[in-house]
């Protein structure tokens, strides 16, 4: 934790979350607020520069007036930061031309979410992490609710309720970590190092996995994701699905103790992850709305990530954070690119639809690990930690499921395109989207050697190509079989289990009514005044019981 003399690097680090926050400050002036949206693409610029140029290991301790936050950049952080910032930039360009109503408010929420989303990758202390995590979690509410439709309201209510639940779980987890950390240190590294000896280890791990599991939508904590991504405006859905979700990934990277093998916790996490991966595919193919298909794909992909993390935790593999960051970065660009392509399709005339669909297809199948795409490398990198056991094999198989799901996405997309032709009013530039798509394709090839320590040529061997191809082929076959019979796939409502959970609504209401009745009774004069007398007696007795 040395404060480097390298001032520009330090400044850049601080600027990554600070610039968007400062931009919000201008929103106090109403006129500036209305114009803010035009400048959204510039907000993540310092983060991109920082991710590329700032040497890993650079850290800065902000003054107490800024919470005394510690910011530090490391390799996984830099990869996640760079990819997320790029997506935010493309999203900002898209939003600038596609958001027409309440632009001031949208820009404000956007910037807060952006600041949080980038900040979590840099925060090195728990308070700072929690601060940024809260920003990205709670401010996303404003993006989800933006359209103010009944669906958006329902989705945002559910989202904020679960986000708050996640916040609460993590708050408690961090408190347990801090209570065990030496000398009241709030640095994440200190706290995680002390975790294995902490008397609160088990509850802390449980809370961490639950809290971040909510964010990455592990089944059965996934119910908010489809609703939210469908309800949010397209650019918002893009950044939420691509960038904001990585707050959960980075949380697990930072807070799980990978230097100690914890087989029980690790395997449990891996199993849940695989379950999510499978579940996302199964429910995803039943969805008619392409946005919902993408959301279920996110559930599936995040499940895969959880499986990698789980296996890393089970074996005490300290290389896992980097691998996961690499995988998640690819997912960021690919998923974000896919969402943005939805927005572009809305605006294109039928003749040029293929111009969008083709790159989209590459991105989609990239998520399944199609050879020669970035996705192939991402899957390859993940293979190491997953190992060759049952879990590794199953994880590998999940690529077939991804292919199936992505093909369904493309087909759904194709069938829904004509319906969306009626509104040529918005015309987001395609260039930004192409940059993201290109980055999704190319970035893994550049980073790959630094992740696994092997040349990218390794990926072009026959063995690897075949290994990457057969799941795609299998998925293609499944799609070919299933698509014509898609009518038999009943459309499961978005949020699936949520429908079951909503059955519990009346029960919750009954509890609330019981509380109300209690309160009514206690607020009777006679009851309350008798309570005084009773409490005097009780207190006296309690004092005597010493």
């Amino acid at each position, binding site marked *: 934790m040395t404060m480097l003399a390298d001032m520009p690097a330090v400044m850049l680090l601080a600027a990554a979350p600070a610039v968007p926050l400062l931009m919000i400050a201008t929103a106090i002036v109403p006129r500036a607020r209305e114009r803010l949206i035009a400048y959204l693409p510039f907000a993540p610029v310092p983060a991109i520069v920082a991710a590329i140029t700032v040497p890993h290991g650079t850290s800065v301790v902000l003054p107490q007036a800024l919470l005394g936050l510690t910011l530090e950049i490391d390799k996984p952080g830099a990869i996640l930061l760079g990819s997320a910032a790029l997506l935010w930039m493309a999203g900002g360009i898209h939003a600038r031309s596609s958001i027409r109503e309440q632009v001031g408010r949208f820009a404000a929420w956007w910037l807060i979410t952006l600041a949080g989303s980038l900040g979590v990758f840099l925060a090195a202390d728990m308070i700072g992490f929690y601060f940024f995590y809260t920003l990205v979690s709670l401010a996303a509410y404003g993006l989800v609710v933006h359209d103010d439709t009944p669906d958006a309201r329902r989705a945002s209510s559910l989202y904020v309720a679960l986000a708050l639940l996640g916040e609460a779980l993590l708050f408690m987890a961090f408190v347990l970590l801090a209570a065990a950390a030496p000398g009241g240190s709030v640095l994440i590294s200190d706290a995680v190092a002390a975790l294995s000896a902490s008397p609160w280890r088990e509850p802390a791990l449980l809370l961490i996995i639950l809290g971040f599991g909510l964010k990455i939508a592990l089944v059965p904590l996934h119910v908010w994701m489809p609703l939210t991504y469908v309800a949010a405006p397209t650019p918002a859905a893009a950044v939420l699905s691509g960038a904001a979700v990585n707050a959960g990934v980075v949380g697990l990277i930072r807070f799980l103790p990978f230097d100690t093998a914890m087989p029980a916790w690790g395997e449990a996490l891996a199993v849940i992850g695989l379950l999510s991966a499978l579940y996302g595919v199964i429910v995803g193919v039943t969805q008619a709305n392409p946005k919902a298909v993408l959301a279920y794909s996110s559930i599936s992909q995040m499940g895969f990530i959880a499986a990698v993390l789980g296996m890393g935790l089970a074996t005490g593999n300290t290389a896992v954070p980097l691998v996961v960051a690499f995988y998640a970065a690819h997912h960021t660009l690919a998923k974000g690119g896919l969402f943005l392509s939805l927005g572009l399709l809305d605006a294109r005339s039928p003749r040029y639809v293929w111009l969008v669909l083709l790159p989209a297809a590459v991105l989609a199948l990239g998520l399944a690990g199609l050879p020669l795409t970035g996705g192939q490398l991402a899957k390859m990198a993940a293979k190491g930690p997953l190992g060759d056991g049952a879990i590794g094999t199953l994880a590998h198989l999940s690529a077939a499921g991804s292919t199936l799901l992505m093909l369904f996405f493309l087909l759904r997309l194709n069938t829904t395109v004509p319906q969306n032709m009626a509104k040529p009013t918005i015309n987001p530039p395609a260039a930004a989207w192409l940059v993201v798509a290109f980055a999704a394709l190319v970035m893994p090839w550049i980073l790959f050697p630094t992740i696994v320590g092997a040349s990218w040529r390794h990926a072009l061997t026959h063995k690897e190509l075949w290994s990457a191809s057969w799941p795609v082929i299998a998925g293609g076959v499944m799609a070919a079989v299933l698509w014509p019979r898609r009518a038999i796939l009943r459309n499961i409502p978005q949020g699936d289990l949520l429908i079951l959970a909503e059955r519990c609504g009346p029960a919750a209401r009954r509890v609330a009514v019981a509380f109300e009745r209690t309160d009514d009774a206690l607020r009777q004069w*006679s009851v309350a005044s*008798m309570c005084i*007398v*009773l409490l*005097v*007696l009780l207190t*006296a007795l309690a004092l005597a019981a010493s």
Partner: protein
Amino acid sequence: MAAAFDIGLIVLLVGIGAWMIVVRDVVVATIIFVVFGLLMAIAWVRLSAVDVALTEAAIGSGITGTLLLGAAARLKGADAGGTRLSFPITVVAAVLCAMISASLAAVALLLTYPAPTLAPMAMQNLDQTGLGNPVAAVLFAYRALDTLLEKVVLLLALVGVWSLAPDRAWRGVPSLDTTVPPSDILAFFAQILPPFGIVFAIYMTWTGASNPGGAFQGGTVLAVMWLLVMMAGVMRAPSISNVWLRWLLVAGPALFLIVGFTGVFIADGFLAYPPAYAKALIVAVEAALAVSIAATLGLLAAGPPERMQQK
């Protein structure tokens, strides 16, 4: 013999107290309360607290009684009573209260001698205050801060009462004499009693420095005289925005405050008196306070202004 008298008095106090709680009619309960207050005054004498006995008789019974009686009379028509509690709840309440009483009684029985006391210390320092009545010394020297704050409490209660005035009647007069036209007999008595009362009040305030009595008791007697003449219609109630009235209300506490701050310069600090002038200062403060207390208590009992003054 003395114990028998005490026991009789106590039985009477408790019995009357219980009667007051259970009796149905509000007016009757109020009258019982007045009687109770007078008996309490006797109890205070039995406890060798003549100062308190005077206060209890004047304030606790007298002016509180007047206030409550007037209120009870005005509420006669209104349906102010809620529903009575069900029998089981009443029993529970009774049991709980009995348990409180029992624990307090246990404390009373458990207290041992020698009891801690500040009496010697109060007497030792009495010379420095120039006073002869240790109770007055506590009120105006040792614990003068309490007394000063309590004056503010009184004023504030008055502001609170006034705040309940309807907006249109602000700056108006309290309606003491609206219920029934004053009778001649009352007016007659209300003319002969006040001169005596005023003399008595002045005496009481003056003698308070060395004997039982003082500003509170004197002020209360004055207040009662004032209330009497207002209620009898001999004198009209003043408008609450009357400048003189407001000065009267503030005079005592203000003088007290000024004397208190003067102490910073001429004595040991806030609310300290130089021994040579202690008695003079205290008596001056008491005199001013008596007037302010009289005005405050009288207006408190008179209630908020309810109508504009008839010209």
